[in-house]
């Protein structure tokens, strides 16, 4: 079987993740999710307290970017890059050293 190099698989996965977070996310449903819907229906959504931090990308929107498509897409792309760097970096620190078995 034709063996696809890891480089291509990684690049493909990264492009898909960036497109999903940067472009497709604009078309996601904005209805409350399962937990929030149940909280509304069962009368405990008002127990929610505000988030502690003044998060820079709160609500998956970049501050000071007015265009919603651009703002949401930018937030998504930043999120993908930050998660990739943190999780990838953590995996590299934790991994077994030496050549792959």
């Amino acid at each position, binding site marked *: 079987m034709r063996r696809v190099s890891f480089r291509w*698989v990684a690049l493909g996965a*990264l492009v898909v993740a960036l497109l999903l977070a940067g472009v497709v996310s604009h078309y996601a449903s904005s209805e409350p999710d399962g937990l929030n819907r149940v909280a509304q229906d*069962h009368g405990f959504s008002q127990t*929610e307290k505000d988030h502690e931090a003044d998060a820079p990308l709160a609500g998956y929107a970049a501050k000071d970017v007015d265009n919603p498509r651009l703002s949401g897409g930018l*937030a998504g792309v930043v999120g993908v890059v930050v998660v990739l760097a943190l999780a990838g970096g953590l*995996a590299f620190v934790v991994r077994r050293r030496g050549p792959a078995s």
Partner: protein
Amino acid sequence: MHVPNGFLDAPTSMATGAAAVVCVGAALAGARRELDDRTAPMAGLVAAFVFATQMLNFPVAAGTSGHLLGGALAAVLVGPWTALLCMSVVFLVQSLLFADGGITALGTNIILMGVTTVVVGWLLFVLLRALLPKRPSLVPLEAGLAAMVSVPAAALVFVGLYAAGGTADLSLGELAVAMVGVHTLIGIGEAAITFLAVASIVAVRPDLVYGARPLLARRELEIRATATEATA
């Protein structure tokens, strides 16, 4: 299913926080066995994919949406310990940068959407892999079915936590029915996304899928055994 601040009381949030620290600590030790130079980059990609896909809320019923949780998907792709690390990074970033899920609720969210979906998803996947024919082509199906069950399982754990420290007085039976009901629907979407993602990797490089590797090794061993017999 991100739990905001305030749904659970402080003692319960502290308890889930402590439990999450223990689980992530165990995962740091356990992931060492799963990660090497070749698989470490996969962990970053899987976490990034889970983050991206969690942004994609799909409609499940009138006025309700759901999104992938991803613990089963990550466990099948990179192994259960590494999966928990990936999921924890996703929830940490979502909480700090995106205000999605409270910071005091971070432990709760790691236990609910990380530990629960990884453990339930992985155990069910391993069970299905043992019961069904040992073929790599069945791995996406097994992963999808395991993922489907992991979502209502997480919903049940939320009900359990709410029983321990919910801040509103409500019928737990009704809460359980509502939570499991809507999350069973969300589980169908979870199954579809998990199936597609695992199938894409299995199609091009099954050796990169942690959950498919025992099936590949088995096949190689069979070939070698035959070859040895032939030369003997």
